[in-house]
């Protein structure tokens, strides 16, 4: 069953005939996405081209030389992808605004395993290639390679990288606390730095005086500089400037609180509804953890608000946060906002605590009365986190609010009873084909909504999703 909590469908007027500003903005953003993706692929091609330009193409004549050459290429591509992974996670504004945090971290996660395989191939192929060329067995070759400059350091770097990748495998990550996983993840900086020297000393390709050396140094230093600038310097500068302090805490439910924070010049942040920040509450036992939470209200005056549910130990600690606590912030991040709009109408679909960015986006998004629909999965028809606030905004802005109460069904994203009634996104949202759909909720549930949207004929650029599990 689905309940029409507030009906604004009649308010819709004749649709605009000219293509809206939304489409123009989407086309610009998609160009940037395409260029970034092409740049990524090209960087791999350039890594291989560096080797070919050094006469690598002629070094395939004997089995030993061919295997060695392949090993070098594996190492080059792996290192290039490690730099790509760092950039994807570095919160570079260009990437964040075009691709969005979610998608860029998704790709970051997908690259981990392939890069590790490439690094293994790099080591194994070079060992075998050298052994063949030298005419000695693998063990003797391993001993001789060990004495090459910076090689033990590089192997340490590989071990650290492997540890980070293994800790991020789904099966392992589930067993780890977010905080432990995050600490292990920081080892990657050690891995990158440890692997660096051998590339320039053992790697003949990057011998002094070659232009390849300059290129490689430029991309390495550029990437590390981006990490330092956007992950360390920018957040500190931002926090010092805005001097954010917890102003008040409102209990929403026994395990859900809204935290209001005040600061200086918050309008200069340029944050809008649907975006998130990474917050660090400077209280004893908490200052070392940073958490991503979406804004649950459009920034107003000098106040920001988040709504948090006690899901992990970190968010449980936040239940007891005191007013006056200083807060460091990093952001705003994400394009679960107006930035990714591509259509005139908007549908906001949320489950559980996923309602928070939906609530603020409903406030920030541009739409005319009757052009917005909110679909919420709630415990009861008229009971849900922030539902009263959403109803108030819907009344004043002219949005339709529908709740689908009850436990999640066995298939799909609706309840079993709603599914039996033949309900779907297309049945709940008017003119779905001319609508941007924003989805926020647990991973499996979000995926089910996306499947429903795609099967209704929506284009990928119309579907926007944000995940709040890590």
């Amino acid at each position, binding site marked *: 069953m689905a309940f029409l909590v507030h009906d604004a469908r009649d308010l819709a007027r004749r649709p605009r005939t000219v293509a809206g500003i939304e489409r123009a903005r989407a086309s610009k953003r*998609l160009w940037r996405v395409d260029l970034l993706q092409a740049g990524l692929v*090209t960087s791999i*091609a350039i890594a291989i081209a560096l080797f*070919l*330009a050094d*006469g690598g193409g002629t070094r395939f004549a004997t089995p030993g030389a061919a295997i060695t050459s392949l090993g070098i290429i594996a190492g080059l591509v792996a290192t290039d992808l490690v730099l790509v992974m760092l950039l994807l996670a570095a919160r570079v504004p260009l990437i964040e605004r075009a691709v969005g945090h979610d998608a860029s971290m998704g790709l970051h996660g997908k690259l981990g395993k392939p890069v590790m395989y490439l690094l293994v191939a790099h080591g194994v192929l070079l060992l075998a290639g050298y052994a063949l060329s030298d005419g000695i067995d693998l063990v003797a070759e391993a001993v001789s390679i060990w*004495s090459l400059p910076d090689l033990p350091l590089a192997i340490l770097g590989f071990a650290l990288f492997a540890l980070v990748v293994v800790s991020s495998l789904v099966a392992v990550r589930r067993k780890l606390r977010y905080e432990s996983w995050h600490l292990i993840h920081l080892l990657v900086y050690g891995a990158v730095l440890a692997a660096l020297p051998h590339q320039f000393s053992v790697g*003949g390709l990057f011998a002094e005086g070659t232009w390849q050396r300059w290129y490689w140094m430029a991309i390495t230093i550029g990437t590390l500089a981006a990490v330092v600038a956007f992950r360390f310097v920018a957040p500190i500068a931002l926090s010092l400037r805005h001097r954010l302090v917890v102003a008040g805490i409102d209990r929403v439910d026994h395990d859900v609180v809204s935290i209001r924070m005040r600061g200086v010049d918050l309008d200069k942040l340029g944050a809008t509804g649907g975006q998130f920040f990474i917050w660090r509450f400077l209280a004893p036992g908490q200052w070392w953890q940073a958490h991503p939470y979406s804004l649950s209200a459009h920034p107003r005056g000098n106040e920001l608000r988040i709504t948090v549910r006690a899901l992990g130990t970190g968010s449980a600690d936040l239940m007891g946060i005191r007013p006056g606590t200083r807060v460091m912030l990093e952001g705003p991040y994400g394009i679960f906002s107006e930035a990714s709009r591509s259509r005139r109408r908007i549908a906001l679909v949320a489950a559980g605590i996923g309602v928070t960015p939906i609530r603020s986006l409903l406030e920030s998004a541009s739409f005319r009365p009757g052009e917005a629909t909110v679909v919420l999965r709630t415990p009861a028809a008229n009971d849900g986190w922030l539902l009263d606030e959403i109803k108030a905004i819907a009344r004043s802005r002219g949005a339709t609010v529908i709740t689908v109460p009850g436990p999640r069904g066995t298939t799909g994203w609706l309840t079993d009873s709603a599914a039996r009634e033949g309900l779907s996104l297309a049945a709940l949202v008017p003119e779905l084909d001319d609508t941007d759909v924003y989805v926020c909720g647990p991973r499996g549930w979000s995926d089910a909504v996306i499947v429903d949207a795609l099967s209704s004929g929506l284009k990928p650029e119309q579907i926007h999703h944000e995940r709040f599990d890590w």
Partner: protein
Amino acid sequence: MRTRALILASAASATAILGGWQLGAIGAVTAPVAQSTQTTGTTASTDASTSTSGTGTSSSGSTGATGSSGSTAGTGTSAAASSSSTDGTYTGSTVSTRFGDVQVQVTISGGAITDVTPLHLTDHDGRSVMISNQAAPILRDEVLQAQSASVYLVGGATYTSQAYLQSLQSALDQAGF
């Protein structure tokens, strides 16, 4: 990936790869190919990196260049005696690389290469010294095993290896080896 991104990526990647290949092909023509160098004792090769001053040693190769060695004086008579190699110690030409000059000395005894001594190795900086010190013994072993200058280059020490083997080849040519 969307179609437009795929097209852009393919075009840019193809350009990069082809460009790299082309640069490599040009380089292969002009770069020293020490492994297969069959240059004469006078190193009359077109090799850009071979210093012309290095030829001085080689041109007097017929005397065996024994002066610079404390070992048994080579009785190398003449390079014209090309039919067989003569025992003795021969000094190869000096080969310049961007990391420094390289010159080696070879000892031939009983018609076989019995020792290769580096007289000078790449030394432009600490890194070069380290790399050449590591490469030299490996190259020496390879040469003694192969009994020729046609051996594989040492990984990471490409320049040192190429120059080492080129200098060695010029010494072997003097010996008529």
